[in-house]
């Protein structure tokens, strides 16, 4: 049968390649540039075979090689103090970073993009985004325990947005819910810049004991290489290189078949099967198959190991027997893993596979030749140094420059602009403005989305949307747990990439601290336009510089992440969107702080100061304005605020806390009231006087390093003393009023919670049914 298969293709062997140097190869169609193809020929000392060309083309794609961003990403590894390394067990470069949680526990998390596939086929694109990131977590030896999804779509009323929305949300739910992973948070942003290029990012977090950490390397001559999980099919071929590394262009043929198709059941079985392998210490190295499939897994395992690898490609179990060797190497079929197993463990490994009814195929073994050799029916079709495929790809110092339009953009402030005409000031106008804000697409209630996700499964979800961070218990005995938040503000970053990226980190950091957790580590998903556009490249370079500086200042290291480039429609890039995930630790999740008011009579404090910062704000967006400078970054204040929130949680000084970010104080007050349906009476006169702002600004400014907390009467003195001792601005702005069933703000017409709820919750159902 294999001989028959063999006859179906003209197998381009290494020998044949050496003898036919002038054969034309489709390197351009596979996304390679002339200089890159020339480099491959130089590395090999001959033309590549078809199979080798397939491997290099996917592994040297932007998506897999980070060739445009690598030079800048180095800063994440360089701007790290010894103190920051203290709890980092595995850093950047592996499938995901690992952080020490104490008590022998470790946590691994990572965020990735699945943007282009989710535009082409929203359901499968979003579903396989979850699948891929979850396999990264398994590869580290961890049990995945939760997922999160930051989403950015086009304008809410654009006819195509509903297609993407319904598909992506159903895909995330359909896949994640079937894996038994609670979805504990995320983001939903609507903006026209994402119309032709939605962002679907996916985060997964997993936990393990220290001794269970696994790495992706193939060591030990004679150890066996096995591929297990789903069979290899024709889906997703060239997905990484073709889809993720080029802009959509209507003039080229459709690339639809390049999107992978997910099977969550196969993935769930794979999770349990891998955990059983880890428990029995049955694998030496393990790697998931994601972008670039077998090409990536074989070359990375071999490259990270100490020798070489020999693999017989006809041993791969296929869904489609017509696949060519190149296609098998490039296929991105989901739910597959590759592992290295010692000969002694082969039998035990097979027993685990049989128990879970998972298919597997022994492909070859680890060698000490330093070469990755792939054969087809014994004939050599790949003979490469694995490092040249996996790690020594091209690196570009792309030219970049501050865009010529940046100065004019920053000079165009909202205050005094045409769009600012008729700024609300009368009590009825302010009430209408608050209501309009909380009903707006970006600030409205997101439960239309989140109720399609299972938040309970696993029984360890201590907090989830709409609270500031998702919190998951890790140790049932001690209550040890982790908190996670993701944030990005493309508008801020567009106005100022350096500060905008820092603001994304500041908000995620603040959200984690608001929940009571101590921020520990960062994972980032950098979504940008084409790096070949110097304007975009400048945005990327500035964002990385800003983010890495801020990580250093806040003392939280980046442990991994992903770069997604070419997010643009034609020549119009998306807003630079560095999505930042922060992971924090809670010694006891019972001490977590939710975001809503509950107890009548508790004092409401505003922490931090308010300046007139409306540029880039949600209010400005509602009025169709984008210009000026984003809110000022003050990382020292963020750190202080974080410490106050963490201490307050640990010592039981606050019952609720909610950070102020998009939508400012107005949004935070409404959300805190609607969380449990408990109102409040608020008076901001003292704030207006202290900070020198008017009531509108106090409500809608997006000044950073602020939060509101509710403090039980018995704790008020202690809480105030703590803030005073730390020299942090704090002001009692009101009191929780359970009887009123309204949000009453002096100078603003009283707003009933029923009316606010109707406005807040009505928006998504209105557009999406």
């Amino acid at each position, binding site marked *: 049968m294999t001989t028959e298969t063999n006859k179906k293709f003209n197998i381009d062997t290494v020998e044949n390649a050496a003898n036919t140097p002038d054969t034309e190869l489709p390197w351009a169609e596979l996304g390679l540039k002339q200089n890159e193809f020339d480099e491959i020929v130089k590395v090999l000392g001959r033309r590549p075979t078809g199979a080798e060309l397939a491997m290099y083309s996917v592994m040297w794609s932007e998506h897999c090689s980070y060739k445009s961003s690598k030079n800048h990403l180095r800063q994440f590894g360089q701007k790290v103090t010894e103190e920051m390394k203290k709890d980092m067990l595995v850093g950047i470069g592996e499938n995901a970073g690992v952080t020490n949680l104490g008590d022998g526990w470790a946590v691994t998390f990572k965020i990735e993009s699945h943007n282009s596939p989710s535009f082409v086929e929203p359901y499968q694109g979003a579903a396989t985004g979850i699948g891929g990131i979850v396999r990264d977590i398994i590869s580290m030896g961890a*049990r995945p*325990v939760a997922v999160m999804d930051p989403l950015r779509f086009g304008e809410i009323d654009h006819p195509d947005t509903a297609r993407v929305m319904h598909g992506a949300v*159903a895909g995330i*739910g*359909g896949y994640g*819910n*079937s*894996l*038994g992973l609670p979805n504990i948070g995320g983001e939903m942003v609507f903006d026209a810049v994402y119309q032709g290029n939605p962002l679907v990012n996916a985060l997964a977090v997993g*936990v393990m004991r220290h001794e269970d950490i696994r790495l992706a390397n193939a060591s030990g001559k004679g150890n066996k290489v096995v591929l297990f999980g789903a069979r290899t099919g024709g889906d997703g071929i060239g997905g990484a290189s073709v889809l993720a590394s080029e802009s959509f262009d209507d003039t080229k043929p459709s690339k639809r078949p390049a999107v992978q198709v997910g*099977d*969550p*059941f*196969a993935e*769930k*079985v794979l999770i*349990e099967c891998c955990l059983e392998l880890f428990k029995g210490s049955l694998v030496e190295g393990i790697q998931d198959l994601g972008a670039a499939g077998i090409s990536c897994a074989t070359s990375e395992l071999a490259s990270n190991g100490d020798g070489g690898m020999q693999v017989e490609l006809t041993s791969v179990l296929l869904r489609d027997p017509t696949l060519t060797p190149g296609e098998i190497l490039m296929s991105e079929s989901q739910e597959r893993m590759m592992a290295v197993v010692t000969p002694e463990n082969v039998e035990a490994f097979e027993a685990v596979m049989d*128990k*879970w*009814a998972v298919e597997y195929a022994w492909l070859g073994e680890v060698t000490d030749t330093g070469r990755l050799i792939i054969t087809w029916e014994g004939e050599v079709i790949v003979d490469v140094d694995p490092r040249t495929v996996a790690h020594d790809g091209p690196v570009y110092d792309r030219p970049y420059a501050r865009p010529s339009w940046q100065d004019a953009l920053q000079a165009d402030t909202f205050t005094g602009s045409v769009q600012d005409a008729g700024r609300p000031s009368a009590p009825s106008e302010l009430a209408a403005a608050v209501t309009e804000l909380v009903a707006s697409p970006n600030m409205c209630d997101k439960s239309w989305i*989140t*109720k*399609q*996700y*299972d*938040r*309970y*499964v*696993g*029984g*360890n*979800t*201590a907090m989830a949307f709409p609270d500031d961070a998702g919190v998951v*218990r*890790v*140790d*049932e*005995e*001690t209550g040890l747990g982790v908190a996670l938040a993701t944030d990005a503000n493309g508008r801020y970053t567009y106005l100022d990439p350096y500060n905008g990226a820092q603001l994304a980190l500041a908000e995620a950091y603040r959200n984690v601290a608001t929940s009571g957790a101590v921020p520990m580590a960062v994972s980032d998903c950098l979504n940008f336009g084409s790096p070949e556009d110097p304007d975009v490249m400048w945005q990327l370079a500035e964002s990385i510089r800003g983010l890495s500086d801020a990580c250093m200042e806040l003392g939280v290291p980046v442990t991994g992440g992903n770069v997604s480039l070419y997010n643009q429609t034609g020549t119009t890039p998306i807003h630079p969107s560095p999505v930042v995930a922060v992971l924090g630790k809670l010694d006891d*999740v*019972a001490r977590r702080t939710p975001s809503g008011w509950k107890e009548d009579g508790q004092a409401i404090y505003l922490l931090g100061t308010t300046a007139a910062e409306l540029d880039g704000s949600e209010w400005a967006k509602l009025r169709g304005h984008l210009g000026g400078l984003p809110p000022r970054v003050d990382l020292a204040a963020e750190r202080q605020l974080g410490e106050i929130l963490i201490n307050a949680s640990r010592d039981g000084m606050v019952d609720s806390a909610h950070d102020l970010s998009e939508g400012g104080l107005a949004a935070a007050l409404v959300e805190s009231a609607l969380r*449990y349906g408990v109102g409040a009476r608020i008076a901001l006169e003292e704030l207006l006087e202290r900070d020198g702002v008017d009531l509108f600004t106090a409500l809608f400014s997006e000044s950073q390093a602020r939060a509101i907390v509710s403090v039980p009467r018995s704790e008020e003195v202690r809480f105030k003393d703590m803030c005073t001792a730390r020299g942090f601005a704090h002001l009692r702005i009101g009191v929780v009023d359970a009887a009123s069933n309204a949000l009453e703000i002096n100078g603003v017409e009283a707003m009933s919670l029923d009316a606010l709820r109707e406005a807040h919750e009505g928006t998504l159902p209105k557009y999406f049914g």
Partner: protein
Amino acid sequence: MTELPLIGDAPVAAESRLNGAKIGVVTFPGTLDDRDAARAVRLAGGTAVALWHADTELADVDAVVIPGGFSYGDYLRAGAISRFAPLMSKIIDAANSDAKLPVLGICNGFQILTESHLLPGSMIKNDHLKFLCRDQVLRVENNTTAWTTDYEAGQEILVPLKNQDGQYIADEKTLDALEAEGRVAFRYVGFNPNGSRRDIAGITNAAGNVVGLMPHPEHAVEPGFGPESNAGTDGLGFFTSVLNKIVGGAK
């Protein structure tokens, strides 16, 4: 098969007099809420025993929980493949035997019980066609089953609901018979989340030992990890009911 809890050690049983009672929790490929069901058994004071779908003998257990999830990916039809697992035939026999083994099917477990014909009717896709996760009020209509004696008749409880194929259907004759025989065990109150006939959330067999429902009582057993109101522990009664029945006598 012995299975450790997901993370950490099992909390110490609340009432030591109950921990002699062993409740099996079945895992199929694709089962998701098995650890949660085992945790609920432990928090109620019992001893949870992990059962594997391919086992050909039913271990020495006093009751069985078939937990939620997407066994076999819900492919073909929810529960349709799991129903043929070797262990299921043992469970069916034990449930129908004179010993009347108490069996609780939650969500996918309920679907498996209807596919096994231990309970009548079937579940189809929610009428709104989406997965739905929410805290749901149920009324306990029958507090005489093996799994409901710790509730008052007519008591309203709040437990999470999370499924895609939760719409309970049966022909009118079956529905009338269920009503007449008091075999509607739970009904949705205030909001029918999936279009289930006659607001039925769960049913029992005539003997009262086999109960199935779509909502998830095992996710309302621990304060802080279930619904935010009612202390979030309204589901514990399922497990204390069966444990008390096994140990004998009321608390």
